[in-house]
């Protein structure tokens, strides 16, 4: 017997799915098509979803992410995929939850402001270090060094958490 009602899943996740797609796909019509494609997959496979293997939230995120990856592969086969959109999730799926994101937020707040800025601009916005250097009015070498320090400090702050 299906544990989740399709209507409830759509109501609960439609906004999250569209939010992610719109953050990744600028064309509104394409984004709407992808939103439909994601829910077509989710609702088709909902009966097979096994909550003992992953949370519903993580599963829907993975389906959405893979659909966006497929879109880029199909529409721009010659372009390199966004480096933040690699095929594999580079983290234990059990850590993909809102508590881990709050831990990351706390760790970021513990960094000096410039280092926090570099991490957000690099990993959330996907900016190259050269562009970050321009934005911050620093040399590339200085940003590269600070980026390394920021990653080391974050690793220490998040030890045992991720």
């Amino acid at each position, binding site marked *: 017997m299906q544990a989740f009602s399709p209507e409830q899943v759509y109501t609960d996740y439609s906004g*999250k*799915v569209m*939010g*992610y797609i719109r*953050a*990744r796909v*600028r064309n509104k019509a394409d984004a709407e098509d992808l939103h439909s494609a994601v829910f077509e997959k989710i609702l088709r496979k909902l009966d097979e979803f096994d909550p003992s293997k992953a949370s519903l*939230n993580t599963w829907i*995120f993975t389906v*959405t*992410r893979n659909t966006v990856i497929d879109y880029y592969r199909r529409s721009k086969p010659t372009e390199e995929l966004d*480096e*933040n*959109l*690699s095929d594999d*999730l*580079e*983290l234990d799926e059990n*850590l*993909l*939850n*809102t508590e*881990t*994101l*709050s831990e*990351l*937020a*706390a760790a*970021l*707040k513990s960094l000096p402001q410039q280092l*926090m*800025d570099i*991490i*957000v*601009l690099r*990993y*959330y916005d996907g900016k190259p270090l050269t562009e970050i250097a321009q*934005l*911050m009015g620093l040399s590339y070498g200085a940003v590269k060094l600070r980026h390394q320090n920021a*990653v080391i400090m*974050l*690793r220490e702050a998040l030890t045992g958490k*991720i």
Partner: protein
Amino acid sequence: MERALKTLFDFQKFEGNADLQQVIDSVHARYAKKELSLDDMEWVSAAGTPDPEKKGDQDAGLQS
């Protein structure tokens, strides 16, 4: 660590965690004046000048 950060920040685009979003917004606020956002760039013509008429049309469309 860097791969984990990429994945977590990507997941944030789906999850919209309020604590992390607050950090991200504070960073963006510091650099907002230093760059045109991608949304702003959409309204810049090929010659590099703003195209308010185009934006006006689009805004009108959004309101309908």
